[in-house]
C-alpha cells in the first residue's frame, strides 16, 4: 500500500463522468444541447441519463467567453464538460453510452482522488 489519504467516507461529493467533446463542439447549458462549428446539434436522449443528472461545463467562466478572446489552451479547456450524477450512482454503465454520442471524443469516470501523503498518527488532545 502506498501513502495516501483517501476522500473521507462521509464527504458529500457527487459522482461525475468527465467528458471531452469532439473538436469544434460546445455545450449550451441553457438549451441543453451540444452544438458544433459546422451547425450540427445533438441533444442527449432523455433516457440516457438519470432524471436529476446534469451536464455542466468544467470551467463555466471560459465556456461563457467568446472563443475569439481565448488563448489556444483556454479554447481547448472549453471542450471539457462534466456529467454530474445523483449520489451513489455508479457511473461505469453510463460511460460507454456517452462515448457513443456524436459530440463526444472521450468519457471517463471521475478520477479517484486522494492526498499524496503518509501521515503521522494524530494527536490525542
Amino acid at each position, binding site marked *: 500500500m*502506498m501513502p495516501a489519504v483517501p476522500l473521507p467516507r462521509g464527504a458529500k461529493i457527487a459522482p*461525475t463522468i468527465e467528458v471531452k467533446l469532439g473538436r469544434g463542439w460546445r455545450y449550451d447549458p441553457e438549451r441543453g444541447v451540444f452544438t458544433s462549428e459546422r451547425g450540427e446539434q445533438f441533444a442527449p436522449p432523455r433516457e440516457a441519463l438519470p432524471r436529476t443528472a446534469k451536464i455542466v461545463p468544467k470551467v463555466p*467562466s471560459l465556456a461563457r467567453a467568446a472563443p475569439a478572446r481565448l488563448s489556444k489552451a483556454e479554447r481547448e479547456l472549453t471542450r*471539457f464538460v462534466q456529467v454530474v450524477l445523483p449520489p451513489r450512482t455508479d457511473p461505469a454503465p453510463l460511460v460507454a453510452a456517452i462515448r457513443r454520442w456524436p459530440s463526444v471524443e472521450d468519457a471517463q469516470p471521475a478520477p479517484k482522488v486522494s492526498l499524496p501523503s503518509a501521515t*503521522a498518527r494524530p494527536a490525542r*488532545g
Partner: protein
Amino acid sequence: MARARVRHQGRVTRAGYISADVEAPSTPDYVVVELKDQAPVAPAGARFAAPAAAAAEAEDLNRVLARFSIRAMRPQFRLPAAALRRRVEVAVARGARSGARARADSEFRQASFVQIVPRRSGDASKLARALQGRPAVAQAYVAPRPVPAGLSGSAAGSRLFEPAQGYLYAAPSGIAAAEAWDLAGARGKGVTICDIEGAWNLRHEDLPPGISLIGGTMLADLGWRNHGTAVLGEMVSRRDARGTVGISAEAKAVVQSAFIDGVFNLAAALTNAADRLTKGDVILIELQAEGPNGKYVAMQFWDDIFTAIQVATERGITVVEAAGNGNENFGLPIFNGTGLQKDSGAIVVGAGVPPANHVDFDGFGAGLPSYTSLGVPRSRIFFSNYGKIVNVQAWGWHVTTLAYGDLQGAPSENRWYTLRFSGTSSASPIVTGAVACLQGRAKAKLGHPLPPAKVRAILMATGTPQQPGPGVPLTQHIGPQPNLAKAMTKV
C-alpha cells in the same frame, strides 16, 4: 573568548524562549573551513600557505580571502604549528598516491579545520559561500551561535521547532533557503501562493492572519485539514519565536478547494486560482489519483487538468505539482501520449530520501519494520513516482511542520505540530516555497518575475543532484533537490 554580560529575564527571543538569567557570550560570527584530506594547505598568519607544488591551491584560497577584511585566521582546534606541518606532509603523500589511505587520526582530522574571523560579522555568510566549492575545501560554514541549551524552549506556549526543519538549511542536506533569505525579496515578498487541495485549519497559531479560501468548499475532515495545514506551514508559517519558520514566510497565501458545487473539479479550481493570481505567483497542486494501473499518478494525467495547467503557466503563474506516491514509472507504454509524458509547464515534484531517514513507525502499512533506513539521501523514496516529467525532488519523509500533533500535541489543534509529514505531499511545498523565494528575489532585483519555464530551468540546473540507491537507480528519475543559494545567482 570575549564575554559580555547579556542578561535575559524570561523573554521571547528570535531563537526561542529564555526563561531565566543567563550570561551569554558575545562573540563575532566566524567561518569554519574543513580542508580536503588531499589538500596540503595550512593557515599561516592571515593567509594560507602550501609547499611549492601546491602553491596554486593556497593562492586560490588567498584570492577569496583578499575580497574580505579578515580579523583573524587560526586552526579551529588551536593546534601547534608542528601539527599543521604533519598534516600537510600526510596530505602531500595522499595527493601523490591516489587512493592511499590518509593517516586519519584525530590530529589530522582536527588540523583540517580552520577558523576565519571576518572584521564584519555580516561578511561571514558571504565568505562561507565564496569558499564553498574551492578545490581545497571540503566544506565551509558559519559557526553556529551559542545558546544555553537547558534554558530555551521550555516556557509556556509553543516551542520553536526551526532547528528540526533540516530542509531549510545548506545543501546538500536542505534547499539552502536560510542562506538565501538575506537577499532582498528572497523570502517570497510580493508573491502569492495558492494551495489547491481540500481542507485547512486557517486558525492555526503559526499561520499568518488573512489566508482566505478563494473558491470551492472545504471538506470537514481532520485528515484532510491536517494535511492542508502542514502544507501551508512549510511555506508560510510565521517567522517568530515559536513553531516553525516558513520557507517563504513573506509570501501571501490563499487556498482553493478542488471541490466545487459538490463535485471534484480540479480544472475549474486551477482556472479560478489563475484568474485571481498574477504573473509571478505560484499554484500548488496537492492531490493525486488512481491511474490506469490502479496506482496513484500525477493529476496532469487527465487532459482537462493538463490543459488547465497550461492556461495558468501561459499567464506567467508557476504551477507546482506533486508527482504522486504510486511507485509508478511514467515512462511505461501505457502512458504514451498522456500528460505523464508531455510537458504541461508545471514543475513536477518527486519525493527524495532526506539525510535523516529512518522509518520509526509503521504508520502507513508499507510492510517495513520500524527503524529501517529508507535509503541513500536524495535517492528516490520507494513510493515516489518517477519519469522524465518529474523535474525536481525534495524531502519526502519526516518534514517538520504544522498539524497532526505528534511533535507537539495540545487540546486545540491550533497548536499541533508534526515532525513526520511525508510523501510527495511534503516535498511539493518545499519546492513551492523555493519558487516563491526565487520570484520574490526576481521582483526585488529585476523589477519583474521570471517566466515559469525559466524558474523551472534554474531550479533544475542549480539543484543538488539525485543520488542512486539500492533498487532505485538514477534511471528512475526524480531530478535534483533545489539549492536556493545557487539558484539566486541565476536571477
